[in-house]
């Protein structure tokens, strides 16, 4: 059932203005989402590279020129898109972090309640500061461990991990674009090389075993 919205205390004109503003923000979000998730940036990049069909047809010369000059309009749009995704990932991480803190704070509050509700006899028993800290530690430890095993905590930390990894992946994308502009090998390039190296080693060692040679003898070292 829809709830009836309360009358705007600033009057009907202000209410109409605020509604328009909300609608505009909603439309802006939708546009941003469409831009970020669609093929639009990709097609824009392709179209810009071909001069939107208006170029003189000297593709090779243009390609060479582009390689020398670096990013053009469409590349910058793509970079913008990735920056927007990075910002979204950062926002998402903040939101998951806040949700995690809410769940993680609960055992502290429970422990504080229990610590405050101790009987005078218990308080007298833990008179010194070390005893006080010991009693607090024991209570808090039990509550924290119990909380960590709850579905709520596990879900919150899983979401947090997911968001943090996503942010890192988006940061890597930005780094790759910048590295690509300056011709610096990227992490992806490094992973490709190490993958080939690992596979090559496996092949060589499998061959050595088939031939009955001892690969480790060559690489063996004596201290």
């Amino acid at each position: 059932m829809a709830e009836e919205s309360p009358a705007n205390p600033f009057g009907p004109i202000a209410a109409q203005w605020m509604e328009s503003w909300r609608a505009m923000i909603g439309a802006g979000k939708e546009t941003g989402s469409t831009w970020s998730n669609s093929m639009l940036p990709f097609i824009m990049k392709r179209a810009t590279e071909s001069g939107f069909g208006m170029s003189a047809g000297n593709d090779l010369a243009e390609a060479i020129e582009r390689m020398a000059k670096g990013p053009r309009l469409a590349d910058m749009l793509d970079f913008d898109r990735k920056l927007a995704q990075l910002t979204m990932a950062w926002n998402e991480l903040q939101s998951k972090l806040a949700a995690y803190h809410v769940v993680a704070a609960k055992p502290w509050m429970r422990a504080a309640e229990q610590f405050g509700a101790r009987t005078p006899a218990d308080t007298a028993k833990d008179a010194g500061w070390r005893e006080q800290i010991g009693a607090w530690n024991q209570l808090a430890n039990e509550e924290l461990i119990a909380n960590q095993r709850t579905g709520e905590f596990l879900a919150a930390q899983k979401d947090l991990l997911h968001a943090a990894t996503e942010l890192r992946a988006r940061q890597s994308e930005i780094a790759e674009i910048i590295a690509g502009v300056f011709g610096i090998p990227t992490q992806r390039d490094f992973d490709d090389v190490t993958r080939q190296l690992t596979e090559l080693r496996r092949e060589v060692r499998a061959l050595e075993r088939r031939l009955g040679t001892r690969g480790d003898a060559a690489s063996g070292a004596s201290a």
Partner: protein
Amino acid sequence: MSSGKPNWDTAAAFAEMTEKMVKAGKLLSAIKDEDVDVGATPKKLVMRRDKVELFRYEPLAAQQVKTPVLLAYGLIGRYTMADLQEDRSLVRSLLARGLDLWLIDWGQPNRTERWLTIDDYVDDYIHAAVERICRETGHDKITLLGICEGGVFMTCYAALHPDKVKGLVLTITPIDFHADHDDPDTHHGFLNLWTRSLERADIDRLVDTYGGLPGEFMSSVFSLMTPMRSLTKYNVDLIDVVDDEARLMNFLRMEKWLADRPAHPGEAAKQWLKDLYQDNKLVKGEFTLSGRRVDLSNLTAPVLNVFALNDHIIPPTCSRALGAHVGTRDYSEIELPGGHVGLFVSSKSQGSLSKGISEWLVARDGQ
């Protein structure tokens, strides 16, 4: 509310703490990194394969066990836990009991090792080490001694290459990764629970993004398991040890070991977390390495399984499960008090672990 009178007890305690903190600061600034030596028992480099090194420890006593013993730690942390300091060292204790002890050190894996799998660790690095030891010593079989994940690697090797294994000694080794359900202690098994809570796609994404399982990330997961201990370590605990040089150095060596946590190689981490922790393939007989199924009933050599009763990282039930799956009748267990790390580094456990292992080895050496 304050009564207006000064609380002299509290003031005195505060003054004492402040004094100790100042003293701790002065002491710590005077201790150099090289003063805090871990893994210092003398050993000789015999073979290097990529970043993996095979060492042979120098003997400390007349040889009592002829069969060489190869020690391997896991890829989460370093082997130095087994050789923390002179009076807290499984390595030294075993050497003192006359073992011919060898060590595989996995080195410091980073993104370069992203594509290495457990297949590589078992069928290449361990296999090459075993062959080298056999050539150096003239034996055709050796004894394997695995710690934690290293124990899983050794178990897989022994099941896939039974002709090369005279005996298998496992310490704090998970075999049934879902047996934490059988452990009633709620302080145990968080790692199992946490890993099962992860989405498989998130594990892939994490490993692909970082190129491995970051060491500091795993450290934070371990810290969660003992939350208050992690919070009081650098204040209350440090103050407690600062008056005692031996305890302070022990504290610093532990810290050095904890900080020395390289990234777990990526593809191997995916196998570890998904195939083993999530799918429990080892105990189901579904875990494959190099295209071959790891069948635990192929463990026909004698097996000694050592675990810690208060192990919060690897619940004892996860280790004990091996007994139901081995193919040998010569299967023994030693359960010791203490925790995952305490088994190796606490003053209380020194002696009992090495005694149990060496007596078991001596009894089977001539067979």
